[in-house]
């Protein structure tokens, strides 16, 4: 398992200790929403829920960028497609109210379809061009979603879709507060568990993928595509698979998002959101599941924590000189630049990536020579 590689040798040898740690972690995760509620308030439980959704997104993008090395700047389109697929079939829009058991897998399929659709024409393109084209696709999807309310109303255009059904099984709806054994479980708590389960599943799938033939094929393509092809790897199919698999994560996350928020509109799926997810992957540690999860958590939670910068400035300086939201963006941009300069593999890097990125710093060496790769 991945964890094994990152724990110190002493720890690795004590199987008993490892199991105990896992159990402790599991207990912590299960109790988390109530602990956070008590210490920090319900707002933070909600923030953690959103962070979990973004973890799924980051894990999905990690497959595309981290494993296969394909820079996708339009990833949020899959999130959007999943969200709309769910919302269209579980809301008053067409008055269809299908169950999430059908819709979430459907969202994954639809997203995968779009992943292949997007991937197919761009496979031959080099890194920079690929990035721009995926960016273009992301924008195209958003524009279509925003405008497909004429000549017939498919997506309800900029007004978005309201009253999206929450997750529910029979009469048990996650949008209501339940009491179990004397504990009050609010919607934010219920959704936390659903999201947590999905994130855990995503982590599991990512880990299996990484350690499979497919994963190794991706590494080969990433490091030297010609050589990989020469070794008999179907580079085209592998790349398509990366897009499709990455997209499915986005599709499922999208459906969950729609049910959680009860309302979706094209405004939630802009280029900035794509860039955010990319930064979660890059800053956290490309190719490393743990790093990516960390990146998602940090980049969702820190901006919220930074809201306090406003009152803090007032307390210290008597006036707000830098808007907290501007401050957040400035720090963000700075973080990107600094990370690339000093720690390009991310905060918690995967060993392979670290080796790759460090090796090419030296002027000698076969792969770093051409400036214009």
């Amino acid at each position, binding site marked *: 398992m991945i964890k094994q590689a990152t724990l110190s040798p002493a720890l690795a040898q004590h199987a008993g200790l490892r199991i105990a740690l896992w159990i402790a972690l599991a207990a912590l995760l299960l109790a988390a929403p109530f602990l956070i509620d008590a210490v920090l308030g319900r707002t933070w439980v909600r923030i953690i829920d959103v962070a979990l959704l973004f973890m799924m997104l980051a894990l999905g993008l990690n497959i595309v960028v981290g494993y296969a090395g394909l820079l996708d700047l339009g990833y949020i389109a899959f999130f959007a497609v999943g969200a709309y697929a769910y919302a269209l079939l579980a809301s008053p829009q067409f008055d269809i109210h299908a169950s999430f058991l059908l819709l979430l897998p459907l969202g994954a399929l639809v997203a995968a379809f779009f992943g292949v659709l997007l991937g197919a024409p761009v496979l031959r393109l080099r890194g920079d061009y690929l990035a721009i084209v995926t960016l273009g696709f992301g924008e195209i999807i958003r524009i279509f979603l925003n405008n497909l309310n004429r000549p017939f109303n498919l997506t309800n255009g900029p007004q978005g879709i309201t009253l999206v059904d929450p997750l529910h099984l029979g009469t048990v709806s996650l949008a209501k507060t339940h009491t179990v054994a004397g504990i009050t479980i609010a919607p934010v708590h219920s959704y936390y568990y659903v999201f947590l389960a999905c994130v855990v599943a995503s982590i599991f799938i990512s880990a299996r993928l990484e350690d499979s033939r497919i994963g190794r094929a991706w590494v080969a393509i990433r490091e030297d595509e*010609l050589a990989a092809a020469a070794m008999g790897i179907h580079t085209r199919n592998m790349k398509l698979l990366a897009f499709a698999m990455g997209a499915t994560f986005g599709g499922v996350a999208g459906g969950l998002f729609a049910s959680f928020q009860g309302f979706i509109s094209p405004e939630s799926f802009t280029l900035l959101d794509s860039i955010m997810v990319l930064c979660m992957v890059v800053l956290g540690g490309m190719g490393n599941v743990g790093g990516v999860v960390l990146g998602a958590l940090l980049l969702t939670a820190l901006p919220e924590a930074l809201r306090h910068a406003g009152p803090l400035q007032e307390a210290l300086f008597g006036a707000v000189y830098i808007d907290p939201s501007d401050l957040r963006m400035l720090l963000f941009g700075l973080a*990107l630049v600094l990370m690339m300069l000093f720690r390009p593999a991310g905060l918690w890097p995967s060993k392979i990536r670290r080796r790759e990125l460090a090796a090419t710093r030296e002027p000698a060496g076969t792969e770093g020579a051409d400036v214009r790769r």
Partner: protein
Amino acid sequence: MDIFLQQLINGLVLGSIYALVALGYTMVYGILGLINFAHGDIVMVGALVALTVVGLLAGSGLPPIVILLIALAAAALVCVSIGVTVERVAYRPLRRAPRLAPLITAIGVSILIQYSAALVWGKQYISMPAIITPSEIRIGGAQLTDLQLYIFLLACGVMAALLWFIKSTRIGRAMRATEQNPDIAGLMGVDTNRVIAFTFVLGSAVGALAGLMVVLYYGLGHYFMGFMLGLKAFTAAVLGGIGNVAGAMLGGLLLGVIESIASGYIGDWTGGLLGSNYRDVFAFLVLVLVLVLKPSGLMGQRVSERT
């Protein structure tokens, strides 16, 4: 026919602005192989600086052309400083890093420039005091202002100047050499670092000019205006053949015309199914088509397939 002519004129002027911005992209890409995401934001800073200067000098009684020149000088100064600093601090250390790193750095720089501008100028739309009143020119049934004509001529002029520069001066030759093979150029005595820095100087200066034109033409500036403009200009550069100065000009004009015509006629062509709200989609579709069908662009040289 009048309407078509008018749309054409609209497109050419819009395209001239794209061309001016695209020149900056194409030069940097040609020499570094890097898409400088931040270039659109440098244009924005130039626009806002020019706007501020004009605002300060508007009541001073100086003739408008003098005010504009001062504004241009100020904008160029600021833009060049930013461009050179960014190159030195953020891009140079990453010259040998894999594709992903400088691209992400460029995104980071773009965000930094945008929000620093927001700090300085605020997030409002800022209007340009009207110091020149454009006069009308009629061609057939279409209407044109002399400002529009100047923008078009200026774009052509700048391109011609750049072409001559790259062809006939020593630095121009050095730029071409570095573009073709930086290591060999280095061996032949070219100081590649200097040349690259100079490319950024040139690109940023042209960007400042583009910013001034934008703000004169539309009459307003905003901290976020660089983004879409940059994207479209990059599309134009790719359309014409990235790395190719004449290509940037051609690509810009062509993209402007395509956008104008499509936006004006798409509703009629598709019987109301698609409308002018899909205008941005056209630009992206053009980009995708060019990259898929002819990645070297209209005027570019064939680039090797090797990643």
